[in-house]
């Protein structure tokens, strides 16, 4: 009998124990979905917050509530924003962090510190740089008239990731690279165009600061050379096969669209006796032709010719991309990292002014393109 009573009593105890101190009811809080950081003319931080409002009715779609505040630090901004909000602001659900180009050219680590420090903040939030003002993008409110802005941008970046035109990264995954002296990263680069948002390439970073941009094609080449191919990687390139018409505007017949099926790459960092650094970067891409109106791909010689032209063209593009990165001091390939790991003595000497040393690294780049598939017609 005693035991039965004990069991009955103890069954009720958990009811009184459930999160007495740490409970955080969803109906009492407001969830931030996206946040944008701009720079005011006075050099202060201008933060724009997107808060998801879920109306109580079942049929109604959620609306994003968007507003801004000026402050000195991100956390202060959040507290100021919280004051404008009924219910307490919670950050568990941030989907995107947008940083304006102007702000990104300063140290971005302070903007992210709160993400790293607060255990309740999400770390799989996507992060991107915006050309112009981040607030302008967020104040679009909706993408394509239906999708709430924060979700829309998140999905937009996600779909670009699939196309290998921006890296697959989040707030967390840039952290090790950002803090590592031997490697740099790139972020998606967005822009508001009319009433839409477009991904216009990637923004290169050096240490904690943005230093330049890459076009979409350059970004794809960079990611492929780095071995970060996602689902798809496509290029449309001009191939002037014989009989080209001088002076005429290019016709669709002069172009080919290829899809990289398999990308193999090898990077060797060599240091010679004079401690000059040379990087060999060789890539072999097996590609699938997905658009080529000139046809005639059943002839070996045509394919061989195309292979040659494409190899040359993409090698040039790769070289151009790397030059651009070197000029901007963005060590996206982690040459410094290779030195730290495999040539520590050399690194110790070069560590101090690695940025300028990196610009003098000689890259030996070669891309080999091989057409292996051509769809169902020749």
């Amino acid at each position, binding site marked *: 009998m005693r035991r039965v009573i004990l069991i009955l009593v103890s069954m009720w105890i958990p009811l009184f124990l459930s999160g*007495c101190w740490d409970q955080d009811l969803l109906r009492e809080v407001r969830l931030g979905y996206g946040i944008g950081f701009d720079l005011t003319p006075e050099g202060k931080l201008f933060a724009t917050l997107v808060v998801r409002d879920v109306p109580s009715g079942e049929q109604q779609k959620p609306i994003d509530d968007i507003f801004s505040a000026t402050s000195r630090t991100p956390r202060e901004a959040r507290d100021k924003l919280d004051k404008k909000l009924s219910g307490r602001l919670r950050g568990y659900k941030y989907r995107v962090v947008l940083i304006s180009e102007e702000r990104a050219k300063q140290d971005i680590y302070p903007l992210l510190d709160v993400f790293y420090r607060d*255990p309740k903040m*999400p770390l799989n939030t996507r992060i991107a740089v915006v050309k112009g003002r981040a607030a302008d993008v967020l104040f679009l409110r909706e993408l394509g008239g239906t999708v709430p802005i924060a979700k829309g941008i998140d999905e937009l970046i996600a779909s670009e990731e699939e196309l290998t035109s921006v890296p697959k990264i989040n*707030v967390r995954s840039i952290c*090790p690279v950002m803090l590592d002296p031997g490697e740099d990263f790139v972020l998606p680069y967005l822009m508001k165009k009319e009433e839409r948002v477009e991904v216009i390439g990637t923004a290169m970073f050096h240490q904690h600061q943005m230093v330049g941009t890459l076009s979409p094609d350059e970004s794809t080449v960079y990611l492929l050379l780095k071995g970060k191919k996602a689902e798809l990687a496509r290029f449309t390139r001009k191939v002037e096969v014989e009989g080209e018409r001088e002076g005429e505007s290019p016709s669709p017949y002069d172009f080919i669209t290829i899809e990289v099926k398999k990308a193999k790459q090898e990077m060797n960092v060599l240091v010679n006796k004079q401690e000059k650094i040379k990087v060999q970067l060789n890539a072999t891409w097996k590609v699938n032709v997905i658009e080529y109106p000139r046809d005639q791909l059943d002839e070996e010689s045509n394919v061989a010719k195309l292979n040659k032209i494409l190899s040359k063209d993409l090698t040039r593009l790769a070289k151009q991309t790397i030059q651009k990165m070197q000029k901007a001091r963005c060590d996206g390939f*982690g040459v410094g990292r290779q030195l730290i*790991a495999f040539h*520590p003595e050399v690194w110790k000497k070069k560590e101090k002014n690695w940025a300028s040393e990196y610009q003098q690294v000689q890259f030996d780049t070669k891309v080999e393109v091989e057409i292996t598939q051509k769809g169902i017609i020749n």
Partner: protein
Amino acid sequence: MIKEKSRITQGQLMFLILQIQVGVGILSLPYRVQAVAKGGGWISTLIAGIVAQVLILILWAICRRYPSDTLFTFLPKIAGKFFGKLLGFGYIFHFLFIAGIILILFTDIVGKWILMDTPRWALLLLMIATGVYLAKESIRVIARLFVSVSFFIIVMVLLTMAGYTNVNFTYLFPITEAGWPNILKGSSEVLISLVGFEVLLVAYPYVEGNSAGKLKAASLANMLTTLFYAFEVFTCLIIFSPAEFPLISEPLMYMLRSFSIQIVERIDLFFLSIWVIIVATSFVGYLYLASTGLGYFFHRGEHKKAVYYAAFVCFILAMIPQDQKTVELMNQIATISAYTFAAGIPFILLVIAYFSRKRRMEER
């Protein structure tokens, strides 16, 4: 003699040791090792495993001489009545202290990661209530439970594998960046997380079978723990860049924070819940060891009666530290205590036992 009902098999012994070894330290282990040994941290872990193996050999060599005695009954036989009792109390304090440290680190981490506003005593009560409930049972019941929750270690390994989606192996190199002396020093950081094999001193007579089998079980447990630790350290080393490591004191949790799978958005919280079980088993282990000692001295071998006040002592111990400094200090004391009672004293005992037997043989 040990009653038939409280005997355990060699397999159960293995899980008993494994579960007591794997404990509260696992979350911060990679951080502590990396701070000293850099990219060679995983080597430190393996070295520590070998050292622990040697210590297990020593403990086993003592126990083998007294196959039907536990620690508290054979101590007087080796060291004399007075010193034997003194050492026995020493061991009880050691066990209580380690149990207290486990509680402190447990509340620290849970308070930091999920239950920020929950007062310390509430967390402690939850853990201690569970601990008492189990520790008052016989070693067989405890061992059985440990066997069944060992499944969670596999889950932990699987969850850690989520980290392999984004790794950089060059973070490991140069492996000997810190130099071999530091790699060895790093292994002392690991060794403290490997303690728990002292349970052999008490559990030995309860185990069925011959002494070689018991050694095998203990060694296997130690090997599994070491490999598990080495895997976790290795994973963290290739995920966090060397410059990032000093910022993150619980790398394992931190790593999981950034992943989400379809159903579970925050894997780290999932991981922490499993980790709580792992911590509870270590705590129960030490609580059981301490109360066995107290039971031997005060309750004619009935450890059940001692569990309650032993747990209370742990509670008090865990309520003492109010700031990080005190925690650090207590942690250092625990380290010294672990080295003394898991390594130093057994070694001396073994030497004494060896010579006293030799003398006896000569006298004959």
